[in-house]
């Protein structure tokens, strides 16, 4: 069982609410889901959709073929009917969208009318539609009713009752009305959590003890700020909206200097404004974590859509030379654990760490049975209070074997904590001489980098372990590449190499991935960009050149059909 349900409509019609409600209910009923969103940069009107996939197997990619379309606007039908599976159904309210469509695959459900009749208010139309979907799928309505109760209980019994009735009305109407429906939702395990990329990053930050978050709103990073703000009081975190991104990163650096874990996040345009601060964090050896949510550029580009266009920018951004961490999680689960690892390494090595994600990962929801908190890292590397030795001789930038100097905080001991964006001596005072400069570069850059390399995990090898065909990629394409391997491995010896820890670039000690690549007949680098940035990085770091490339730069994510098709086209030649 593997159904895709597309909820379509204008911005402001509430397709997201319908979608997220369904996702949540499916998750609770123990199904695996994957959802992704497609929306324009406007608040009302236009045409958006929310697509949700449900299956008894883990699913993590968008599919082109859809089984159910919930059309809240006319375009929902005209634009998407071609995607409908022969056995699929389109439900719509002819009265609301002022159009009727003939044919067995159409079911006209009077969402508004039913809402008024049973709930007493047109605004419950979406609840009707939600119920209808469950009805068509022949699933039990109980869990949905429970969720409705939870959602509206604050608003009082009456509202709950009305929504329940509206929901039932849609459910019953669809169940009865949908004669030609052949859907059967099978197999289900224990309840699943449903979580998106931005939620996972925010959660990872909280789980890492973030105490200060400053940012300027920017899609697709704003969700991180919203989630953290919702937990501000409960977890003792200050979330500050800065006047601009320059302020955001400098505030985060200030808070970190003062002794707490801090973070900021933005998208490419805002990151541009942060790169001077990135370099400042490196020079002052102040830990800071930066979320960079990619969207199609250059400039404003397609602000609500997706691309993997800033891999090399994030690795080489900032003036001067300094170590940094760049992680690009492939799923919410990776986002959660890698955010935690970024906080840990950033503080351990006193360097900036970048979480590179994109709109696709940010807004997509995945299901999990749960995450293991005990796998999280936490060490407070800071040097607090009078306790520790060397109070009087304390030097913020002391030269050490490892290049890591004790990180004390100002104002909580007699130590003076001094740092400078100018090149400085061990104490942190400005210098001009060549000798000190050289020692500081060796400490800050060479020694730390040497140690940092060992912290980096190799790429994930999934599929055949001596593959004829390798598809390689990074970040948010994890899910679609993995499913492609599952599909293709029936006929072929194929594997995926997925990189999520990108800088420092993983060495080959734990996994000689170039060896695997060299043995393979075809190696295809898959990127959601136009220039093949990862392929370039692979060449510069290992000298290895992929045999083929698949690029997508239309602002939309890969679908499994499209990716499989393109891979076939490549390996067909073999």
């Amino acid at each position, binding site marked *: 069982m593997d159904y895709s349900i597309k909820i379509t409509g204008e911005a402001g019609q509430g397709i997201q609410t319908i979608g997220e409600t369904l996702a949540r209910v499916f998750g609770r009923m123990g199904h695996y889901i994957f959802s992704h969103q497609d929306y324009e940069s406007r608040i009302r009107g236009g045409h958006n959709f929310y697509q949700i996939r449900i299956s008894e197997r883990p699913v993590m990619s968008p599919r082109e073929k859809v089984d159910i379309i919930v059309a809240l606007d006319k375009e929902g039908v005209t634009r998407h009917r071609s995607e409908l599976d022969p056995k699929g159904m389109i439900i719509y309210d002819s009265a609301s969208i002022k159009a009727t469509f003939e044919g067995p695959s159409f079911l006209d459900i009077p969402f508004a009318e039913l809402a008024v009749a049973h709930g007493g208010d047109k605004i419950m139309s979406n609840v009707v539609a939600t119920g209808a979907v469950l009805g068509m799928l022949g699933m039990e309505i109980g869990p949905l009713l429970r969720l409705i109760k939870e959602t509206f209980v604050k608003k009082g019994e009456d509202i709950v009752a009305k929504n329940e009735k509206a929901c039932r009305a849609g459910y019953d109407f669809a169940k009865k009305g949908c004669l030609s429906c052949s859907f059967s939702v099978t197999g289900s395990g224990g309840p699943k959590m449903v979580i998106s990329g931005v939620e996972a990053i925010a959660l990872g930050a909280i789980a890492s003890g973030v105490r200060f978050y400053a940012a300027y709103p920017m899609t697709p990073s704003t969700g991180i700020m919203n989630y953290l703000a919702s937990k501000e009081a409960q977890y003792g975190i200050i979330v500050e909206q800065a006047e601009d991104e320059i302020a955001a990163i400098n505030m985060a650096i200030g*808070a970190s200097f003062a*002794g707490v874990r801090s973070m900021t996040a933005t998208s490419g345009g805002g990151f541009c404004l942060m790169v001077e601060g990135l370099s400042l964090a490196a020079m002052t050896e102040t830990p800071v974590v930066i979320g960079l949510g990619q969207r199609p550029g250059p400039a404003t580009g397609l602000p609500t859509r997706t691309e993997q266009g800033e891999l090399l920018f994030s690795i080489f951004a900032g003036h001067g030379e300094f170590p940094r961490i760049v992680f690009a999680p492939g799923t919410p689960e990776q986002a959660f654990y890698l955010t935690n690892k970024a906080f840990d390494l950033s503080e351990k090595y006193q360097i900036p760490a970048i979480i590179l994600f994109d709109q696709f990962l940010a807004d997509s929801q995945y299901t999990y049975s749960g995450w293991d908190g005990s796998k999280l890292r936490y060490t407070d590397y800071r040097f607090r209070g009078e306790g520790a030795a060397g109070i009087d001789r304390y030097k913020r930038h002391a030269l050490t074997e490892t290049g890591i100097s004790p990180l004390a905080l100002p104002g909580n001991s007699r130590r003076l904590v001094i740092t400078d964006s100018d090149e400085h001596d061990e104490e942190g005072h400005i210098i001009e001489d060549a000798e000190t400069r050289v020692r500081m570069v060796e400490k800050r850059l060479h020694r730390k980098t040497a140690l940092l390399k060992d912290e980096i995990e190799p790429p994930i090898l999934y599929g055949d372990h001596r593959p004829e065909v390798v598809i390689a990629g990074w970040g948010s394409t994890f899910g679609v590449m993995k499913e492609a391997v599952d599909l293709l491995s029936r006929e072929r010896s194929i594997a995926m190499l997925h990189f999520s820890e990108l800088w420092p670039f993983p060495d080959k000690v734990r996994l000689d991935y170039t060896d695997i690549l060299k043995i393979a007949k075809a190696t295809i680098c898959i990127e959601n960009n136009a220039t093949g940035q990862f392929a370039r990085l692979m060449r510069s770091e290992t000298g290895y050149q992929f045999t083929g490339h698949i690029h997508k730069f239309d602002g939309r994510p890969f679908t499994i059909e499209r990716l499989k098709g393109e891979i076939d086209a490549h390996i067909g030649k073999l």
Partner: protein
Amino acid sequence: MPTLESYRGQTPAWCPGCGNFGILKAFKDAMLGLGLEPHMFTIVSGIGQAGKFPHYTRCNTFNGLHGRTLPVATGIRLANHEMPVVAIAGDGDCYGEGGNHLIHAIRRNVNVKLLVHDNQIYGLTKGQASPTTGEGMKTKNMPFGVISEQLNPVALAVALDCSFVARCYAGETSHLTSIIIEAMKHKGFCLIDILQPCVTFNKINTYEWYSKRVYKLEKDYNPEDRAAAFVRALEWGDRLPLGVIYRNSRPIYEERMPVISDMPLVKKPQRRPDTADLLSEFF
């Protein structure tokens, strides 16, 4: 008790006769007057001659980027609002490159003390016009002289309802000391615009030029009257008023942020919080 010795820093790289020396002395006297020890507070500075200031005394120091003193100072205060934070900037630093942060730091009213070494010139980069340079002054990169209208930072701050706005003069160190002490005691964001002769590059606004013009606000001047303060702030020409031009008692950000009503962020437990209940919310 701290002594002048406690505040002896590196030897200044400023030009002999630079107005910054007067500010440095006044600052040290103020810290002594307040009985503060170097480890008790932090100075955030930018890049410029003024930015080198903290190296020439002793204190916790974050000498950051040109123009970015205020966001860093804000971050430090929000993480640890029990520690006094002083921001030191140049006029180019704070009114040029960093102008946007000034506007919003004033609005935010975080309890940071901002000292602007206003020499009406870009000193460290060899004499270009700053926002406070007088119209007409010729520089190497402005052969026709400055065209933009001279910025009046005091009027700007009054318009933004800044919690505490003063103008001082590097040549009047004891007055400056007393104003710094007053600012440190005031609860709220403080801007002290300090007229500072640059003996090398500003040949117009010299010690003599300033000394001829500055005067102290009358005893009965009322800094709480915003409209009057605005008029006084505009006084720039033959006479330059020194003192606290405007003051109000808006509550500070730190007191309005519930998250730190119990203790500063930096005092909260620095450990991995239990997130099990958060995860459960996703089911």
